[in-house]
């Protein structure tokens, strides 16, 4: 086997290279040759091809994502310590605490191998948070699957759930929320998004950069193997003889080792505490290619790496393979020479393998050697940041008008005497049924800081045991709304996550997102994408909270059919005293009144009712009024601070009926409800901007006066009835909590046990 060195590349300019198989276009390959002034070596080609992939370079989305920056004002930026461009966004939440959080996708690997795909998805996002210098504190998992009763969902869902749990539980990170959504469009392409949130003292923020010539580059954590480098195997087949070629059946699947990651976390935090780290970068997608080029281009010099020093798990790996390996549970640190011994000692204490693989140099090149031969010599920015940028064609889908014109008005509405049964049918439908089958597999208690977890509108953790300061997080997206109108749909996703956070008593302060879409080469998908980004950014500007980071996942489709556009939005909120949290279930106080905040209109476009009862998707999504959402949030936060609310639950899919069922079942307490007007609309409409609150009778006047004074519409809709053990809707009849529980909790176990 011959090594493709830079020297070799210079002397063999015409050697054919499999750049197409590696996903590079003709002009991209030409551009690489132009940058280098020669053909790239195998190792360089491996680096460029993976770093210039859609996943790493954001080549189709970049021009649109810029809009987030353009719409973020200085005022919105005030509390933001790090934003788009860093591993994860960082927000100052007061008392000297900084919070970092981010959501990422691991969709495709999770379809191939559900358990490991989901597990390594969690592992990856946790390392992103760690790389900011923070202690990871909790995870969430927004998931999307094909129809609940499809045979393949039976394969995929249990594996993904077990993988999320298997990894997160073993890391000791409480799972405080997420989503489980079923829709036909995800049948061949489930979505596994994973969010992690961490905390640090403001002064401990670590940013990824390699500065200071002479500083050492240390790779620590797991050994590097042949994981996840399926693509690069085309290089191997060129340079390997037949016998070796056989070994090169490279897996595209990575296997996670959460134990190694747990130790890596504790080891890293100890390194941070002892101030032994100048810069740090996690190894995720694109492995060392990404870590070395990103560290080098963010620093003030060049970098030299002795790649043959990387501890390997497999024999006979080529430089291209070592650079491309996506072996999990690895980190790369920049360390002052005088700190190297201390660094190694901490790693030894934790039994973590650590190897000095290079150093920061004067100059501006990233030079990588393999047994003293130069195999990479590139300007690092061209790898990490100066990839191709595409202005993909954009076109509003031809059938968008027809879709919007096909409103739910034509659907037969249920008769009055069918409504009670409909409440039960809806509660038992896969998208509204209890998620307990899933969440029971996740540890929500570990670390002892979980104040709210499933089932709750948002997850909440205590950050400071002395002051009781904490944060709340919610992720949301209704892909059907986004399909009907991507601009409004993205705003609705934001509005819901925002409302969920406020519903638990926290003040929303920042946003992250994971934009899951179909192929960017489809102009209709690009239109959805552009609209969604605009909607989200405009929405954030209206609410005055910044997007601090996110992730884009394209090519989510089965054949030519794209998934529902799914911009998952995560909102972070702050609460000064978690003891003031508002729970979801009623019955905490004797004598509570139920109030509905906000206004109900007849809005059934994209609704769960249209989906469950008629299999219909058409019309327009509910209207969104962000000024109203803001007011609603302020009222909820004030209500929490002044102890006026004993329970609150946000109205979303399934409308008021579903909110009532849930608040009763979670609180194990009955209620009597009196509604006016068209009962079907009252119960099942999905108008945005609404929250059901329970107010202790003694606080009722004070609270409603506040709503009136501030101009927030409210209506008394019922009373809590601790005696009844039933949900009674006046004029319709009652449903016992036992039968509701059976309906709500029975669905997922029946499907997946």
């Amino acid at each position, binding site marked *: 086997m011959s090594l493709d060195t830079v020297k070799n590349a210079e002397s063999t300019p015409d050697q054919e290279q499999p750049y197409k198989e590696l996903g590079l276009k003709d002009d991209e390959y030409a551009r690489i040759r132009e940058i280098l002034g020669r053909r790239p070596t195998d190792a360089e080609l491996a680096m460029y091809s993976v770093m210039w992939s859609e996943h790493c370079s954001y080549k189709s989305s970049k021009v649109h994502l810029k809009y987030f920056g353009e719409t973020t004002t200085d005022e919105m930026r005030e509390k933001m310590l790090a934003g788009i461009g860093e591993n994860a966004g960082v927000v100052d939440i007061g008392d000297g605490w900084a919070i970092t959080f981010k959501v990422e996708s691991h969709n495709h690997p999770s379809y191939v191998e559900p358990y490991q795909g989901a597990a390594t998805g969690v592992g990856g996002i946790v390392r992103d948070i760690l790389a900011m210098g923070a202690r990871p504190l909790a995870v969430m998992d927004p998931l999307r699957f094909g129809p609940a009763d499809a045979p393949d969902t039976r394969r995929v869902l249990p594996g993904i759930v077990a993988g999320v749990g298997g990894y997160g539980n073993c890391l000791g990170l409480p799972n405080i929320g997420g989503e489980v959504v079923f829709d036909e469009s995800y049948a061949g392409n489930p979505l596994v998004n994973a969010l992690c949130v961490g905390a640090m003292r403001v002064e401990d923020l670590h940013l990824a950069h390699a500065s200071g010539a002479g500083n050492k580059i240390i790779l620590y954590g797991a050994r590097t193997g042949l994981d996840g480098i399926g693509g690069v195997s085309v290089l191997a087949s060129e340079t390997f003889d037949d016998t070796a070629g056989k070994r090169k059946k490279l897996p595209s699947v990575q296997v996670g*080792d959460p*134990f190694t990651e*747990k130790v890596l976390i504790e080891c890293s935090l100890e390194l941070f505490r002892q101030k032994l780290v100048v810069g740090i970068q996690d190894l995720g997608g694109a492995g060392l290619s990404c870590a070395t080029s990103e560290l080098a281009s963010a620093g003030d010099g060049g970098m030299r790496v002795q790649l043959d020093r990387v501890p390997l798990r497999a024999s006979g790996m080529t430089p291209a393979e070592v650079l491309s390996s996506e072996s999990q549970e690895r980190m790369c640190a920049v360390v002052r020479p005088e700190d190297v011994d201390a660094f190694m000692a901490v790693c030894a204490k934790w039994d973590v393998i650590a190897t000095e693989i290079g150093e920061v140099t004067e100059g501006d090149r990233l030079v990588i050697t393999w047994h003293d031969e130069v195999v990479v010599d590139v300007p690092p920015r061209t790898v990490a940041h100066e990839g191709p940028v595409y202005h993909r064609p954009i076109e509003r889908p031809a059938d968008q008008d027809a879709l919007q014109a096909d409103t739910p008005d034509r659907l037969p509405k249920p008769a009055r005497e069918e409504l009670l049964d409909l409440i039960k049918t809806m509660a038992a439908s896969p998208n509204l049924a209890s998620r307990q089958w899933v969440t029971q*597999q996740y540890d929500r*208690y*570990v*670390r002892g800081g979980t104040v709210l977890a499933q089932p709750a509108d948002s997850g909440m953790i205590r950050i400071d045991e002395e002051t009781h300061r904490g944060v709340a997080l919610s992720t949301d997206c209704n892909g059907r709304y986004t399909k009907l109108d991507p601009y409004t749909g993205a705003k609705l996703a934001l509005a819901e996550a925002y409302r969920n956070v406020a519903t638990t008593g926290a003040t929303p302060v920042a946003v992250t997102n994971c934009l899951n879409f179909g192929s960017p080469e489809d102009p209709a998908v690009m239109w959805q994408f552009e609209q969604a980004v605009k909607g989200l950014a405009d929405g954030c500007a209206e609410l005055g909270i910044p997007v601090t980071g996110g992730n884009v996942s394209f090519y989510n489709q089965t054949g030519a059919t794209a998934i529902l556009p799914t911009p998952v939005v995560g909102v972070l909120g702050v609460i000064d005293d978690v003891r003031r949290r508002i729970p979801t279930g009623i019955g905490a106080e004797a004598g509570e009144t139920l109030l509905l905040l906000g206004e109900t209109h007849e809005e059934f476009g994209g609704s769960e009712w249209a989906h469950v009862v008629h299999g219909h998707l058409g019309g327009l999504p509910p209207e969104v009024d962000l000024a109203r959402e803001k007011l609603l949030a302020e009222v909820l936060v004030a209500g929490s601070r002044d102890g006026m609310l004993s329970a609150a639950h946000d109205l979303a899919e399934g409308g008021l009926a579903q909110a009532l069922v849930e608040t009763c079942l979670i609180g194990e307490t009955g209620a009597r409800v009196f509604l006016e007007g068209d009962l079907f609309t009252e119960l099942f409409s999905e108008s945005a901007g609404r929250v059901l609150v329970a107010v202790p009778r003694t606080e009722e006047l004070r609270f409603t006066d506040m709503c009136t004074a501030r101009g927030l519409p409210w209506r008394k809709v019922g009373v809590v009835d601790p005696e009844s053990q039933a949900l009674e809707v006046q004029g319709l009849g009652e449903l016992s909590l036992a039968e509701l529980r059976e309906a709500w909790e029975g669905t997922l176990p029946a499907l997946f046990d």
Partner: protein
Amino acid sequence: MKVGVITFPGTLDDVDAARAVRYAGGEAVSLWHADHDLKGVDAVIVPGGFSYGDYLRCGAIARFAPVMQEVVEAANKGMPVLGICNGFQILCEAHLLPGALIRNHKLHFVCRDQWLKVENNETAWTTRYDKGAEVLVPLKSGEGGYQADDETLKELEGEGRVVFRYVGDNPNGSRNGIAGITSANGRVVGLMPHPEHAIDALTGPTDDGLGMFLSLLDAVVSA
């Protein structure tokens, strides 16, 4: 009162065990798996988590850690020892308690609030409870099914060494619904559920678990 809390690589609930000790008025002393001494503590908690990833068998690798040799020696001399979840598994592997814990009968990890019946309130860790009382604490484990042969089981039941039993449907297939047991002298207790996560209704389902740490305080003070 000083209570040691052991940390192995992969231990997770050590911060929580230490917090519970503090809530009860004790001083938590952190013990590292590679330590060869117990730093003069009056009692030891082996907390939950996934020591060494729980690869091979839960607790199988941790049992051989240097600090465990000290724990076994001290326990044999009567020091109170509490093993929670992974700690219970480790104590079984170390033969401080009989039996073993295997994969939950439905194969899933189970995290839920679990009612337990206090069957024995005479151990070093349970005197604050009434016999027969029911307490609500979190259970969170994937391998919590208690197994022992018939003879051992008869002995445990006969000597009143079952300390906690699951109330309602059996969450993990444990024989006789056993959630926790004690050594012959009542000083070593192991249980799968997590009393240290039920010390404050803000972050747990109840504060029912605090009783175990308060009981220990009594036991150490009166010893």
